[in-house]
């Protein structure tokens, strides 16, 4: 009897002890972070929307570049000017050869010196493992001239090479980077932050300060990036609860509420991305008729979309993807302001009329019934598509909205009347007009899935590539922009502004609109 009692008391004691320990350990943890805060630990925790999934520069170069681990030969400044990066200077040797002179005082994170061998190694490896990089940059091969000089040989005369060298994927890393089974698991770069560790299971990347950074020592001691926080409301909750110090793209409607929170800073800045409508197929009815395309462009109320769908996190476009401030932007374009009357008129001219009085236009017995395809990952897209749908209804076009995976949409764009409502259309991954214009409007462009073909545009784009005088070049590209907007190759609705949310103690973030989607900078520091 007694023994049993003791036993049950023993159990109670054990339980209470365990509970006490658990509760206590929580307390200790809490206090631990509190004291850390009081001496203002220079540590930045970032919640990143996209997954990191690899630290191999050949595939994750863009990410590692955005987090300042790896650098490129040239840099794009926030004001869109191209400045020397790891390269000191560059010159054109002949039509297809660019000579790049490297800076000679640059050390990798392992204290070895950056030489032409590393540059050649990085380029060769990047282009071999990731054919997209070769495709985007148009580089044929890299030749070492001496320890601090390399030649870049291109397929065709290419004036865009210096800009292409700032492409976030064209990162330079040491040939001593630790490789395992052909995949780099510990990249050694030149950036302000060094690789500490990467946990693939939890998708957390840890970086530490590079004391010997060639361009001034960064202020932060550690940067921790939690990748794959895809849900906007999850990121919002994380920053509000103080779990992270820095994140981007909270839910569209929350900007105002977050701004009123004294513990947070909200920075909304332009980005070279935007929202647009892509016609499914320009060579087939109904979009082979330019009047129909124009009518659709006039039918979209861009102003109200920017105000109510993008919550002012955007700006009306001039019909082209380049944001104001970019040198080669054609500032004379006006795009297609909202005008439903004009849209109806144009459709009438194209032969579309409501003959059976059901509110839907028809022509030769065919009703104007189309499908708007879009995908759910960008939160503004589904409501944007629904709004466009209701605006089309006003001019007599009956649209159905289908939300599905990006890849599934591609297969359906040949259906009669298909339109893709797109977001994230980027114009500056390579800061050169050729990148965006050729991809989208050259008849063989990578993103030209809608079959836009204008021989004049093709000719001008090729001429632009091989023109080395910048003023002349930009004029050619401005001309292309005008032709494309006149042709209504697509309907660019609005530029997308990025919202960055930080704790109020995070200072020194300088937005870089050319980044995809954001890039931290060495000047960031934490203040109480």
């Amino acid at each position, binding site marked *: 009897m007694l023994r049993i009692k003791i036993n049950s008391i023993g159990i109670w004691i054990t339980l209470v002890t365990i509970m006490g320990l658990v509760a206590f350990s929580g307390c200790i943890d809490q206090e631990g972070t509190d004291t850390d805060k009081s001496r203002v630990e220079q540590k930045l925790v970032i919640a990143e929307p996209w997954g990191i999934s690899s630290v191999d520069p050949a595939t994750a170069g863009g990410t590692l570049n955005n987090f300042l681990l790896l650098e490129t030969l040239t840099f794009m400044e926030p004001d869109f000017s191209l400045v020397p990066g790891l390269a000191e200077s560059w010159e054109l040797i002949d039509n297809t050869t660019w000579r790049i002179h490297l800076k000679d005082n640059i050390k990798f994170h392992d204290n070895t010196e950056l030489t032409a061998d590393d540059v050649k190694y990085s380029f060769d490896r990047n282009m071999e493992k990731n054919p997209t990089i070769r495709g985007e940059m148009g580089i044929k091969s890299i030749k070492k001239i001496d320890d601090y000089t390399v030649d870049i040989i291109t397929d065709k005369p290419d004036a865009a090479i210096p800009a292409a060298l700032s492409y976030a994927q064209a990162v330079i890393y040491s040939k001593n980077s630790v490789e395992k089974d052909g995949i780099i698991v510990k990249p050694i770069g030149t950036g302000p932050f060094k690789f500490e560790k990467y946990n693939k299971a939890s998708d957390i990347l840890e970086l530490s300060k590079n004391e010997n950074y060639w361009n001034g020592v960064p202020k932060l001691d550690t940067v921790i990036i939690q990748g794959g926080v895809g849900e906007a409301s999850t990121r919002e909750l994380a920053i509000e609860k103080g779990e992270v110090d820095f994140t981007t793209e909270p839910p569209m*409607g929350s900007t105002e509420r977050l701004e009123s929170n004294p513990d947070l800073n909200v920075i909304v800045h332009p980005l070279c991305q935007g929202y647009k409508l892509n016609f499914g197929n320009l060579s087939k009815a109904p979009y082979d008729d330019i009047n129909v395309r124009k009518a659709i462009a006039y039918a979209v109320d861009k102003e109200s979309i920017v105000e*109510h769908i993008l919550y002012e996190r955007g700006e009306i476009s001039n019909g082209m993807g380049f944001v104001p401030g970019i040198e080669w932007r054609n500032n004379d374009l006006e795009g297609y302001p909202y005008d439903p009357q004009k849209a109806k008129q144009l459709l009438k001219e194209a032969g579309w009329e409501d003959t059976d009085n059901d509110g839907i236009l028809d022509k030769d017995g065919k009703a104007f019934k189309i499908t708007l395809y879009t995908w759910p990952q960008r*939160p503004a897209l*589904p*409501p944007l598509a629904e709004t466009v749908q209701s605006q089309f209804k006003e001019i007599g076009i009956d649209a159905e909205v*289908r939300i599905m995976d990006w890849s599934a949409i591609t297969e359906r764009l040949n259906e009669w009347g298909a339109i893709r409502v797109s977001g994230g259309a980027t114009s500056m991954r390579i800061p050169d007009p050729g990148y965006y214009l050729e991809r989208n409007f050259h008849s063989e462009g990578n993103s030209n899935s809608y079959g836009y073909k204008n021989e004049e545009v093709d000719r001008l784009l090729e001429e632009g590539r091989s023109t080395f005088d910048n003023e002349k070049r930009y004029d050619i590209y401005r001309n292309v922009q005008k032709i494309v907007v006149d042709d209504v190759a697509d309907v660019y609705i609005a530029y997308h502004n990025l919202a960055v949310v930080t704790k109020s103690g995070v200072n020194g973030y300088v937005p870089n609109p050319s980044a995809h989607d954001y890039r931290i900078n060495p000047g960031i520091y934490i203040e109480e």
Partner: protein
Amino acid sequence: MISLLRDVREFGKNRAAMMGLIVICILIMIALLAEVISPYDPTKIILEDKLQAPSIEHIMGTDHLGRDVLSRIIYGSRLTFQLSIIVVTITAIVGITVGIVSGYYGGILDEILMRFVDILLAFPSIILALVVIGALGPGINNTILAISFVGWLSYARVSRGSTLSIKEKEFIECARSIGSGDFYIIYKHVYPNVLYPNIVLATLHMGSVILTVAALGFLGLGAQPPTPEWGTMLNEGKEFLRMCPWLSIFPGLMIMITVLAFNFIGDGLRDALDPRMKDVVVK
């Protein structure tokens, strides 16, 4: 006839079940009279009126595109009932037919059909529905197909069991001895006896179908915008949960009330019809 009256009385004594029945009757009225009672057009987008809190003008507020939430809920109930009635009808017909045929004829046919049912039952039904929608693409029609694809299994199981026990009864033997054909026996003797447990099953199934439809809608795989559907509305409201909770609360409440009502009715029916059948499993 007398037994039916007794069953009705039994059912009437069950308070929860009666409550459920009343709620469902009201909801069906709402669904039928959607045009008359809904204050606004459920798909009319007025961006200027977006995200308004509940007020006299908009009893349940407006959503992120300025549409009236109450109107959307009303039209949503119509869609929900349509969908679930179609699904339950299809699955009940298919399931009962398969079950009776399988149980009545037995042998290799029974073996094949039941093993097929076993295989499908081994998967969680929502996963199978996701697979079907993944293959066919999202949309209302595909939602019906996907849910029906897995929904008929329980009916087949229940019907087969009842058929097996009934076909051994003397009155079946009598019928056979006077020369009745298989079809006649199934139609006249087996089918009416199999129907009772299936009615209970169908009522409980209504609840689970409504839940699955809402789940698929929430995942963006069900009704496509701007169609008002409760699950889709939940999904759209999720983005604004912290600011405008009414966008999610009202559709969520509706789903809960409807499913609960169907479950109460199902329980009541089960108790009234057959007190021994207390553990019918609804997939």
